[in-house]
């Protein structure tokens, strides 16, 4: 059993209890708790969250992927502008990208209007941002390795020798 193994298990299922992880890895609960506590303190485990299929409870959310082009700054490169952007609550995910644009920003809002306001009033005017292209998300099929509406229907026979 390694720390990484425990992390991989929790990444798949954050609801696993320390006792479950201990029996599944053949470790003591004390050791598992110790490892997890340390990982939390080190912010190796950043947060425990839940993946929600909002489509099923009325679509209250709108997402857009915003491509952002920026002029890198002396000494800090892209980091300073990235920070200005990722501190906004509306920016749910921020990546520095290779290719034709620099930052990929996933923006979440309650309406398309709300996202448009954020992009035009907050994001685009930031000094160093030279251009944005917004793509609205029409449908979320899969997120973080999880398919929202699976159509798989594998069914096994009850007894096979």
């Amino acid at each position, binding site marked *: 059993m390694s720390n990484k193994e425990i992390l*991989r298990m929790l990444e798949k299922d954050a609801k696993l209890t320390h006792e479950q992880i201990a029996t599944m890895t053949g470790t003591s609960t004390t050791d598992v708790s110790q490892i997890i506590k340390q990982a939390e303190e080190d912010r190796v485990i950043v947060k425990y969250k839940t993946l929600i299929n909002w489509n099923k409870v009325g679509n209250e959310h709108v997402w857009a992927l915003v491509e952002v082009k920026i002029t890198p700054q002396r000494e800090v490169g892209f980091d300073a502008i990235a920070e200005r952007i990722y501190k906004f609550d509306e920016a749910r995910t921020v990546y520095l990208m290779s290719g034709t644009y620099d930052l990929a920003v996933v923006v979440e809002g309650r309406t398309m209007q709300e996202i448009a306001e954020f992009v035009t009033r907050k994001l685009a005017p930031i000094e160093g941002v030279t251009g944005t292209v917004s793509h609205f998300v029409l449908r979320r099929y899969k997120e973080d390795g999880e398919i929202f509406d699976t159509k798989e229907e594998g069914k096994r026979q009850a007894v096979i020798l």
Partner: protein
Amino acid sequence: MTTIRPVNTVGSTALSQRVNSIAPSGIRKFFDLLASMDDVISLGVGEPDYTTPWSIREAAIYSLERGRTMYTSNLGMPELRKELSRHLERCYGLHYDPNNELLITVGVSEALDLAMRATINPGDQVIMGAPCYVAYPASVQLSSGEPVIVPTTEKNLFEISPSDIEAAITPRSKAILSGYPANPTGAVLPREKMLQIADVARRHNLLVISDEIYARLVYGIEHTCFASLPGMQERTILMGGFSKAYAMTGWRIGYAAGPREIIAAMTKIHQYTIMCAPTMAQAAALEALRTGDNNVEEMVANYNHRRQMFVSGLRQIGFSCFEPKGAFYAFPNISTTGMSSEIFAEKLLSEEKVAVVPGTAFGECGEGYVRCCYATSISELEESLVRIKRFVSKHT
């Protein structure tokens, strides 16, 4: 209204002595009971709970879209045999000529049947450990051979003993049928013991027929391929497949690797009975060999978690349970309940709706044990343990 058919129709007299020589499954009653119930947690399966990884399914769909619906060569698609040859070289350092030492079959089941039919003369004896997979003795009998059962025990970790094999040898002994990692026990044979068995095979000029379908599913121990032992490739029919490692049971695809004379003989039977393994399944198998390793690793890691959790759960209930190091079965000793394995399985099913397979399905020496497959979700495994515990405390 039920119609009662007369007993002496042509049906019953038409049967061959050969088929009549095979004992019917002793657990028919159990299957009937199971079929009539809903909401059963089944630990009675013998297959993964994963569906085949998408990249493999997608490759088969693509092959269908391209219209690859014709027969392949009897031996199997040349690309698949080449890839399989590379795979065996990579895994075990074994070289098999893809042109005449490999045969793609309809699962290991077909390979096993072919191996017996190609090598066993009437009366020849095949030595095998038990409890063992149900088809082992039957496949020998269907070839008019005689299965010679060497019991294995929990105390000896269900490892077949080389000296027991040697003691069972007669002038009629033809082959040793080995099946490790084992169904139903989950036992894995350590390399030292395999070397001793190889030595027995060599000294008595026996063939080794080795079913290694669970080769990839081992935990904390390395699988040794029988054919990779010194001097053994020339006397081993290695059988493997895709069902368990790549979660491809329904595709029915496996292979046999062995000396070219034997593969040629097996191919003769194969071409008259099967022609070739299904073309789309071969396309899927090729993709599995090329890109499936990451999927296998992830599935093995997950089986291992369930294995440790389930075995420790059974032990906490109070069962003695040997630590299975391979496959996806636990084989707890239930004799402390005072019930036979069949009664235990029947009562557990009717009272707690948990299906396990009585050990006796795998040979008489399986009495006192049940086979539990842990290839099911953690939540179902936990619930089954709660139910088994309740069942045991009620009956002891």
